[in-house]
């Protein structure tokens, strides 16, 4: 079986690897054990600020640090970052202060904690904020690499990580991982599947199943939702003529929404969106949740057939 690891562990490891920059500071809201900033805290307690269970204060303490020359990394569960949305909007994004917010345990894949903990709207809401870079990496290595690029970004960011383990896909391919650039994992000419986060590996599985039926699918890991890699999408349309998006997120406003906005403004192609169908989740194992929400590889494959059938 292939190597499995959680993207949140990639985030935690990245914090250790960028700790050599003395301006890097970490803010926690009592969930460092979960978001994996705890490793940084243990090694660099003087540069770690506990904010208690107070997300609003955490975001703006980060903003004050960023305005004073520091590079703050704040994390909590994706769902709880949303409690500080207006702080992110007015105190971070508006003055364009480079606070890096990480929301772990994103999506229904989070599992048995149930719907209160399953953020299905975080990518959408942060995507609406000017200046903010929005990412949802798919594996341990890409989360590690993307997080390591954040200190040089000089803009605020939101990164969603996942609680549970997913296949590690990018060992030896670290140099291909760049903020704002989608990664093509598989080449085909019949349909292009654009995915993010935990549904990237599901999309690869779907492409393998399609190949057995003689359908060749391109699979792209669109780890950065904003800025969106529009050039890549244009080339996918030219090459495949039909698009599927796949995300563990509401179909409103996330990756599917971003791709749809790009298509209607730039280039036409039929689009099928695989995502949470504007409903809340429930308690269940990760694989059960992907089935309940109809977003696993089987549903991605079905969407590919529908997209191909709609080609003119």
């Amino acid at each position: 079986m292939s190597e499995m690891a959680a993207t949140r562990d990639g985030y935690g490891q990245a914090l250790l690897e960028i700790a050599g920059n003395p301006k890097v500071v970490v803010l926690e809201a009592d969930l460092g054990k979960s978001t994996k900033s705890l490793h940084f805290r243990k090694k660099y307690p003087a540069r770690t600020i506990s904010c208690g269970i107070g997300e609003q204060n955490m975001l703006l303490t980060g903003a004050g640090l960023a305005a004073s020359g520091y590079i703050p990394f704040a994390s909590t569960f994706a769902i709880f970052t949303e409690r500080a949305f207006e702080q992110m909007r007015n105190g971070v994004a508006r003055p364009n202060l480079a606070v890096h917010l990480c929301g772990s345990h994103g999506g229904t894949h989070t599992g048995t904690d149930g719907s209160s903990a399953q953020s299905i709207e975080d990518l959408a809401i942060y995507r609406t904020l000017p200046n903010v870079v929005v990412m949802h990496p798919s594996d341990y290595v890409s989360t590690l690499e993307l997080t390591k690029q954040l200190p040089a970004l000089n803009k605020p960011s939101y990164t969603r990580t996942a609680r549970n383990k997913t296949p590690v896909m990018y060992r030896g391919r670290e140099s291909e991982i760049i903020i704002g650039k989608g990664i093509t994992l598989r080449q085909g000419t019949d349909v292009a599947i654009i995915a993010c986060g935990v549904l990237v590996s599901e999309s690869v599985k779907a492409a393998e199943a399609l190949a057995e039926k003689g359908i060749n699918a391109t699979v792209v890991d669109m780890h950065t939702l904003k800025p969106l890699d529009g050039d890549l999408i244009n080339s996918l349309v030219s090459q495949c003529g039909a698009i599927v998006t796949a995300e563990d997120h509401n179909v409103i406003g996330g990756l599917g929404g971003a791709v749809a906005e790009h298509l209607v403004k730039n280039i036409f192609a039929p689009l099928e969106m695989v995502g949470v169908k504007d409903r809340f989740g429930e308690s269940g194992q990760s694989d059960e949740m992907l089935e309940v929400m109809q977003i696993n590889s089987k549903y991605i494959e079905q969407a590919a057939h529908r997209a191909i059938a709609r080609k003119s």
Partner: protein
Amino acid sequence: MTLSIPELEEFARKCRVEIVKMVYRAQAGHPGGSLSEIDLISALYATRMRVRPDQPKWDDRDRFILSKGHASPGMYAVLAEMGFISHEDLHSYRVLGGKCQGHVDMKWCPGVDFSAGSLGMGLSFGLGCAVAASLDNSERRTFVMLGDGELQEGSVWEAAMAAAHHEVGNLKVILDRNRIQNDDFCEVQMRMFDIPAKWRAFGWEVKEIDGHNMEEVMAGLDFLESTNDKPSILIAHTIKGAGVSFMEDNPAFHGAAPNDEQFAQAMAELGEVVA
């Protein structure tokens, strides 16, 4: 800068004139809270703040966070008196492209350290600035001005708890206790009971003063500057609209501009001859 009490009072009077003029020209804005805070900010800037008006982004400057960002005319008037911006810039208040945005904005106005406008945010931001100063081993201080109505925002208390927990002694708050908020008196909108006791219970050093008596203001600033092992708050009892009789203690002038007649009366009361 050292100014005598009469000189400070004159500094603040000139700022009051500019506040009323700004709001009158714009026919919009927040005169009441600007007039209540102005003696405090005038004394703070004129006698305490370690800043360089010709180098507003100097790294080691003291920070001033106007959390009640709607009371921006007061801050702009002081920044003009200090030389961060010109008196001509005050004409840009609420004007497209102007340095003097409706609410203070660090991206638009030299000397402004925080983009405010949404209440309950400044103390957390100031906490971040203060922590950064400690990490830098810098002597710089962070002063935050809160409004009393603003204390109804829960996030203020997140910050208050965190500042005490981390013993952030370089964080110094001035509370403009003018007893009026947007819709009505605080007492009507949301009673806050014993405000000094609340801050003490959160682990802060507390002192109360009359925020319009310049000698008490100076003693209050001495208190803030001398308290360095834990965060401190100066609770300044003020009068909303102070200095303009028809605005004083009048909720109608939280966010309303004077008409022509009222403007002339205000100028006369403030000892300003209008050509």
